[in-house]
C-alpha cells in the first residue's frame, strides 16, 4: 500500500498548479430511457450491498428545487472510470446501464432513474480511456433521511457496481445547513452524458456552465491552492470556513482554514454559494474523508477524497492510472487467462523475456534502415500478441520497453529520438487498430522518451515537434487534457513553435475560452508577425473578448495585405460584422462590394452581401447576386471551414522535419545497439 502511495505521490505533482480551469459542458453522449427492471438487477439493488467490478463513483447533492408533488430534486453525478469500463471491450459499441433508486429510510422507493448509454467506441474510446464518463441526472425525494442506490451495469459482460449514497433532503424552510462540498474536475478528462428526459433543475450540481461538473472522488494536492464551492443556507455574513481532513476511521489529521473569495447570494430557498480557497498542507498520501465546516454553524456531509502528499514527478498519465486503481475496484482478471493465476511470476517473467526480445529486434531493425511502417507493424504484432496472452501484463511490457530504450540512450541521448518516434507511430497504428489500451501505453512511452531526450541535452526544437505531433493526434481524437499538457510542454521547450501555439489556442477557442486563446496567440503573433493565420485567429478572438478596436485594426491590415485568400475573406466578413454591430450598414455594404469584387471566388461573401441588400430593401438585387452563385467545385472548403479545422498545415511541416531528424539519428542508435551488444558479450 505504501509503495503504491509513493508512486501516486510521485505522479500527482504533474497536476496544474492553479485551481481547475473553467470547463464548458458539452454533453457528448446521449442516454436513453430503459424499459424496465430485469430480475437480477432488481435483486442487486434490493441487497443494497456496495461492490462490483466496475470502477464507479457517485455523488448525490440533495438541494434541488421542490416539485409540484412536494418532493425535492436530488441531482446525481455518476462517474465511470474509462480504463476499467473498456477493459473488456470487444465490439464497436460499449453499452452501459445506469439505475438510480431514491429510497426512504423505511425502504420505500420514491423515484427511480433507468438510463442506457451506448458508446461508439471507435469514436469515443480514446477520450474515455483518458478519463471516463460522467453522467448527470436527477431523482426526486421527500424531505428527510434516505439513500440513493446507484447501480451501473455493463449488460454485455454483466460487470456491475453498486453504490449506496446516504442522503438527507433538507426542507426548504429548515435552519442553517451545508451541502456536500463541490470540487471541480480538470477539464477535458471526462466525456459527459446527461439523462435522456429533460429533468430541468440540476443545480447545485451544475454550479454554472463555466465551472463545470464536480468530482465524485476529488483529488487534493499538497502545496496547491484548491478552490471549493460550498453551498448552504443561513450562513453568517462573514463566515470562517475550515476544511477538515479525517482518516477513514474518523481521526482528524488536518483542519485547514479557508479564504472566502466569492459569495453568490440567491433569493428564495435556493442555497448561497461560497467560493473558498484552501492552501493544502503536506500530509501522508492516501484516501481520506473531508468535510467543510462554518464556524458556529453546520458542517457539510463527508466526501471521500484522495490526498497527495509529498514528492512527485511529472507524469500525469501515471497519476491517472493510480487514481483508477484507488478510486474503484480493479477490473476482474479476464476469463481468457485463468491459468495465469497459477503460474504467477514464472508467467510474468516469460512474458517480459518475450517482450524484451521482440522489442530489441524491432529497434535493431529500425536502426538497420528498415522502413518505419514495417517495424511498427512488427512491434504492434508483438504487443497485441502478448496482450492477448496476458492482458494484465500490459504495463509490465511497457516498463520493459522503457528500460530497453533508456539503456540504449544512456551513452548518447540522440539515440532516443528515433525510438520515441517509433512509439509515436506505434501509437497511431494501435489506435487505428482500436487497441486503445496498448495505444495509450505507446503514447506514454513516446512522450516519456521525448522528455528524457530533452532533459539530457537533445534539441529542444525537435523534442517540441515530437510532443506537438503526439498532442495533435490526441486533439483530433477528442482527448483534450493530455493533449494540452503535451502542447504546454512543447511550448516550454520551444516558445516559438507556431504549430504548438496554434493547436493550443484552437483547443481553447473550441472550448469558448477566448481569453486563454488570446493570451497564447498574442505571444505567438509577437514571435511570428509574418503569420497570417496567427494574426487572423488573434483578431477574431480579440473581438470576442471585447477588444474590438484592436481587432478592427488587425482586420483592416489583413484586408489591405496580399495574404492568403481564406484569411482575407474572413477578415472582410468579420470586419463587416463589426460594422453591422456598430449600425454602420452603408460601410458594411461598401466593404462587401469591395470584397466580392476582389475575391469573386468566395460565395459566402456574396451571400452576406445579398442578405444586406435584402435588409436594405433591395430583394431583387439580392436575388440577382444569389442567382449567380455557382456550386463549389471541390477544394479545401470555405474559409470558415478551414478556420474551424485543426491548423494542420504547420503540423505537416513539423512532422516532415521530425522524420528527417529521426533519420539523421539512426546512426547514433546503431552505435548504441553495438555498444549494448558489446557490453552484453563481455
Amino acid at each position, binding site marked *: 500500500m505504501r509503495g503504491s502511495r509513493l508512486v501516486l505521490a510521485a505522479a500527482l505533482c504533474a497536476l496544474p498548479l492553479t485551481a481547475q480551469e473553467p470547463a*464548458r*459542458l*458539452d*454533453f*457528448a*453522449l*446521449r442516454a*436513453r430511457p430503459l424499459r424496465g427492471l430485469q430480475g437480477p438487477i432488481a435483486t442487486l439493488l434490493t441487497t443494497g450491498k456496495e461492490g462490483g467490478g466496475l470502477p464507479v463513483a457517485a455523488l448525490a447533492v440533495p438541494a434541488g428545487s421542490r416539485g409540484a408533488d412536494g418532493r425535492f430534486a436530488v441531482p446525481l453525478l455518476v462517474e465511470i472510470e474509462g480504463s476499467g469500463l473498456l477493459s473488456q471491450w470487444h465490439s464497436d*459499441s460499449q453499452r452501459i446501464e445506469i439505475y438510480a433508486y431514491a429510497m426512504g429510510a423505511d425502504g420505500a422507493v420514491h423515484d427511480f432513474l433507468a438510463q442506457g448509454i*451506448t*458508446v*461508439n467506441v471507435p*469514436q*469515443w474510446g480514446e477520450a474515455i480511456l483518458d478519463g471516463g464518463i460522467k453522467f448527470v441526472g436527477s431523482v426526486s425525494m421527500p424531505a428527510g433521511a434516505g439513500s440513493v442506490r446507484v447501480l451501473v451495469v455493463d449488460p454485455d459482460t454483466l460487470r456491475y457496481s453498486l453504490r449506496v449514497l446516504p442522503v438527507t433532503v433538507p426542507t426548504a424552510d429548515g435552519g442553517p445547513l451545508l451541502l456536500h462540498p463541490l470540487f471541480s474536475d480538470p477539464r477535458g478528462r471526462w466525456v459527459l452524458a446527461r439523462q435522456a428526459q429533460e429533468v430541468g433543475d440540476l443545480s447545485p450540481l451544475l454550479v454554472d*456552465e463555466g465551472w463545470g461538473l464536480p468530482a465524485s472522488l476529488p483529488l487534493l494536492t499538497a502545496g496547491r491552492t484548491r478552490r471549493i464551492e460550498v453551498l448552504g443556507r443561513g450562513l453568517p455574513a462573514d463566515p470562517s470556513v475550515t476544511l477538515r481532513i479525517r482518516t477513514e476511521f474518523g481521526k482528524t489529521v488536518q483542519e485547514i482554514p479557508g479564504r472566502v473569495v466569492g459569495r453568490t447570494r440567491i433569493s428564495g430557498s435556493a442555497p448561497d454559494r461560497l467560493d473558498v480557497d484552501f492552501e493544502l498542507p503536506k500530509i501522508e498520501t492516501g484516501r481520506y474523508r473531508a468535510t467543510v465546516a462554518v464556524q458556529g454553524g453546520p458542517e457539510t456531509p463527508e466526501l471521500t477524497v484522495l490526498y497527495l502528499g509529498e514528492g512527485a514527478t511529472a507524469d500525469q498519465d501515471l497519476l491517472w492510472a493510480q487514481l483508477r486503481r484507488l478510486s474503484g475496484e480493479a477490473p476482474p482478471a479476464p476469463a481468457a487467462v485463468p491459468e495465469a493465476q497459477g503460474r504467477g511470476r514464472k508467467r510474468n517473467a516469460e512474458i517480459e523475456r518475450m517482450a524484451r526480445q521482440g522489442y530489441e529486434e524491432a529497434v535493431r531493425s529500425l536502426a538497420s534502415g528498415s522502413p518505419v511502417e514495417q517495424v511498427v507493424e512488427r512491434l504492434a504484432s508483438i504487443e497485441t500478441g502478448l496482450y492477448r496472452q496476458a492482458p494484465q501484463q500490459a504495463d509490465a511490457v511497457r516498463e520493459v520497453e522503457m528500460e530497453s530504450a533508456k539503456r540504449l540512450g544512456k551513452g548518447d541521448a540522440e539515440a532516443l529520438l528515433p525510438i520515441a518516434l517509433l512509439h509515436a507511430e506505434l501509437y497511431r497504428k494501435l489506435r487505428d487498430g482500436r487497441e486503445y489500451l496498448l495505444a495509450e501505453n505507446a503514447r506514454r512511452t513516446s512522450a516519456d522518451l521525448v522528455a528524457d531526450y530533452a532533459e539530457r541535452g537533445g534539441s529542444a526544437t525537435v523534442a517540441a515537434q515530437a510532443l506537438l505531433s503526439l498532442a495533435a493526434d490526441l486533439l483530433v481524437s*477528442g482527448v483534450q487534457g493530455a493533449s494540452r499538457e503535451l502542447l504546454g510542454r512543447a511550448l516550454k521547450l520551444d516558445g516559438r513553435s507556431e504549430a504548438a501555439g496554434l493547436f493550443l489556442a*484552437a483547443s481553447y*477557442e*473550441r*472550448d*469558448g475560452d477566448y481569453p486563454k486563446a488570446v493570451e497564447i496567440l498574442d505571444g505567438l503573433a509577437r514571435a511570428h508577425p509574418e503569420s497570417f493565420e496567427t494574426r487572423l485567429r488573434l483578431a477574431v478572438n480579440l473581438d470576442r473578448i471585447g477588444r474590438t478596436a484592436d481587432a478592427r485594426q488587425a482586420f483592416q491590415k489583413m484586408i489591405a495585405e496580399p495574404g492568403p485568400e481564406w484569411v482575407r475573406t474572413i477578415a472582410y*466578413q468579420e470586419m463587416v460584422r463589426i460594422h453591422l454591430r456598430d449600425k454602420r450598414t452603408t460601410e458594411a455594404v461598401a466593404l462587401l462590394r469591395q470584397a466580392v469584387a476582389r475575391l469573386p471566388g468566395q*460565395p*459566402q*461573401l456574396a*451571400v*452576406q452581401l*445579398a*442578405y444586406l441588400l*435584402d*435588409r436594405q430593401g433591395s*430583394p431583387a438585387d*439580392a*436575388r440577382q447576386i*444569389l442567382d449567380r*452563385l455557382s*456550386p*463549389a467545385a*471541390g477544394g479545401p*472548403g*470555405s474559409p*470558415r*471551414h478551414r*478556420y*474551424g479545422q485543426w491548423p494542420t498545415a504547420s503540423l505537416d511541416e513539423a512532422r516532415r522535419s521530425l522524420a528527417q531528424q529521426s533519420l539523421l539519428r539512426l546512426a547514433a542508435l546503431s552505435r548504441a545497439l553495438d555498444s549494448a551488444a558489446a557490453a552484453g558479450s563481455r
Partner: protein
Amino acid sequence: MLSTLLLAALLQVPPPAEEEIHVDEVINVELQQLYVTVTRGVGAGAPVLDLTAADFEILDDGEPQTVSTFARGDLALSAVLLLDGSASMEGDRLRTAADGAKAFISRVLPQDEVSVMLFSDELLMRTPFSNDAATLLAPVSGVKARGGSAINDNLYVALKELEGRLGRKVVILLSDGVDIESTLGMDDVRWAARRSQTLIYWIRLQDETRGRIERSSSWRDRRGHDEQLSQLEAAVAESGGRVEVIPDVGQVGAALQRILRELREQYVLGFQPAKDRNDGSWHKVEVRVRDGQGRARTRDGYVDR
C-alpha cells in the same frame, strides 16, 4: 406595403394535371392579400378535407378577418429539398437520403415543382425547378459528401430561390441542425423567413450511433450553438411547418412521405388584413376551426411591410 405576391387563381386550383396551371410562369399581379396555409389536426381516419371557408376563423392580432379566398387539397407546390451533404453524410448516407428524396419526388404532381440543393459549408449542388426525378437526383450521385455545415447561409439561399415563385412555397431541410460555418446567423434567416410566406419543414437527424453532435466549435461556443438550434426551431414553427425527428438516414423517405401527405391535406385561406400599417411590425395570426372540428396549425404571423 402589407403583404405578398399571390395569385388568387392559384388558390382555387383546378384538378391536377392540367397544363395551364404549371407554375413556372410568374404573373406579375400584386394583391393586397395574405394567405395562410392551415394543417388541420384531426383524429386518425377522420376526413381532413371536408371543411369549407365558413368553418374557419382568422384572427389578425386578435381581430377577426374575412376569408377572401379558399382552397384545399392538391394545391400546387414549389419546394426546395435542402439536403445536408457534409462529411457527416459520408459513405452510403448521402445515397440513402437521395433514395428517400426520390420516393418523394416521384409522388409530386404535375403542377408541383421541386429544386434539390445539396450543401455543406458550401453550396455543393443545386438543380433547376422540375418535377422529373432524374433531372433532380442524377446530379446528387456526382457529389461526394464533404466538409462542414452552413445551414443558415443555405437556408437563406433556399428561401430566396422560392421568392416570386407561385403556389405554396416549401423548404424541406434535412440536417442534424448544427450550423458551424455560416456567415449569417439564424436570426438573419428568421428575418427572411418571416417575409417569405414559406413553410419550413425540418427533418432532423438524431442518430445515436453517430455519437457526439459537435456543439462547441471554433465559431460558436455551446451557448451560441444552442441559441442557433432554438432559433431554427422557432423559424420552423413560425412558418407553419414542423420538425420531423428521425433516428437514422434510412427514415428520410418515410419522413418525406409524411410531409408530402400533410402538404396534400392542407387548406389555404386568403384574407385582406383589416389593419394595414405598413410599418414592418409583426402581426400575430391565429386560425381556428369552428365547432371543435379539429385544431389548426399555421404560421405564427406575418411582417406588415
